[in-house]
């Protein structure tokens, strides 16, 4: 399984194994990563799974689609590498991905 490292708001690292086909958000929830809330359950409706893709991974993960881009308008502190983690599907290419959790409430 691809390894995904989440860095939470306190700077703590959470190294997780997430099955291919799940979303990055589901990986965070299953491993109890603090700060990824996902109150809409991954429907791209709420922005509470907001995180920043690590600089090194920007090209691999890619950009949000139109719906995600619009939903990100609701997020706190949107930055160029902001993504909703519910919309990133885990693939073999994402093994080693580093995600920085954003301030969600």
């Amino acid at each position, binding site marked *: 399984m691809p390894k995904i490292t989440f860095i939470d708001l306190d700077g703590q690292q959470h190294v997780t194994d997430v099955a291919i086909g799940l979303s990055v958000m589901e990986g965070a929830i299953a491993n109890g990563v603090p700060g990824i809330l996902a109150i809409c*359950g991954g*429907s791209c409706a709420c922005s509470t799974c907001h995180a920043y893709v690590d600089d090194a991974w920007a090209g691999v993960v890619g950009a949000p689609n139109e719906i995600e881009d619009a939903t990100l308008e609701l997020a706190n502190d949107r930055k160029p590498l902001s993504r909703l983690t519910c919309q990133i599907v885990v693939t073999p290419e994402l093994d080693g991905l580093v995600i920085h959790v954003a301030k969600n409430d």
Partner: protein
Amino acid sequence: MKRFIIVGAGQAGLQVAESLRRGGFDGEVLLVGEEASLPYQRPPLSKKYLLGEVEAPRLLFRPADHYAKLGIACHLGVPVAKLDKENRIVYLADGAELCYDRLALTTGARVRELTVPGAGDPRVCYLRGLNDAENLRVRLSQARRVAIIGGGFIGLEVAAIARGLGCEVAVLETQSRVLQRVVAPVVSDFFARIHRERGVNIQLAQQVSAIDATPDALTIITADGSSVVADLIVAGIGVLPNIELARASGLLCDGGIVVDEFARTSDPSIVSAGDCTMHRNLLYPRPHRIESVQNAVDQAKVAAGTLLDHPVAYAQVPWFWSDQYDFKLQMTGISTGYDELVLRGEPEKGAFSVFYYADERLIAADSINRPAEHMVSRKLIATPGGCYPKAQLADTAIDLKTIF
């Protein structure tokens, strides 16, 4: 040590529990639920789950060990038999007696059942909980002809899924248009059209008077004497708030458990949140009851604040969504009582927004495949004043983000 009990382990109940911990509560938290499952997401039940794209474990909000880590004790699969608010005791149906210092009622809602003759046949299904969805998913896979009673969100979402699975689908709606209770005619007409274009037989102003069940088929008889034959019937005719426990205990109920803007019931030790509440939202002059994820979550946070003696009044703009085929309907505000509509975009092209005004103020907006407009609308409606120029809202050449 203080003990807070939460009755109802759905989205609102889980949110109360987590907000208590996030707010620093270090006493006992007990989450009591009638269903056997850990708290799970309901919206996918009428969407991806029914289609077979996701399985039940993926619907869980949190993994099982999360509850132990947070110190949330779950009592699941046991209904509450009685609430004694004078002595602050919750009696479970299995005989357990649980004392509390404070209580949250997040009991949700249940489906309204059909009462016409023949409605008791097991091939007449509903959709609310995971058990319903499991049953419906199996039956849908075996059905060729599906009749849906009720042209609301559940009915139309199930219709879209059933068509996607290759079933013949009919929808019978008692009103003169689908989604009548919640959207303007232009939106109703749009959804009726996209379903009809995909082969759904939508019949409006049809009152079901009986179901004739034989081993081979179910025949729906309508008040005008016509009939629809199906292998499977799905009734989506609304929900009823679960208020019986509250009412029997003496709490004030009126179309829901009555709560103020701090989610307080008529008992100072008891709060309530979610689908079961008739509640105050400071943005609206009158109390209302809303069935939605947004209300469950936001009101639950208010309820937890009140339990922690950090009351914050509820004042959030409601929002909802529905997925049908490739169309995403996103709604915000409450359109009841609107006196003017502004249309932005062309429904014929499959992407547009409708803005609802009352007394010249923007009160609600529905967006179909226009997510950016939905997001802007949420902000516009939340901003006091709300007298946005209609000509600008209607002009698709003007970026909505530049209006405010």
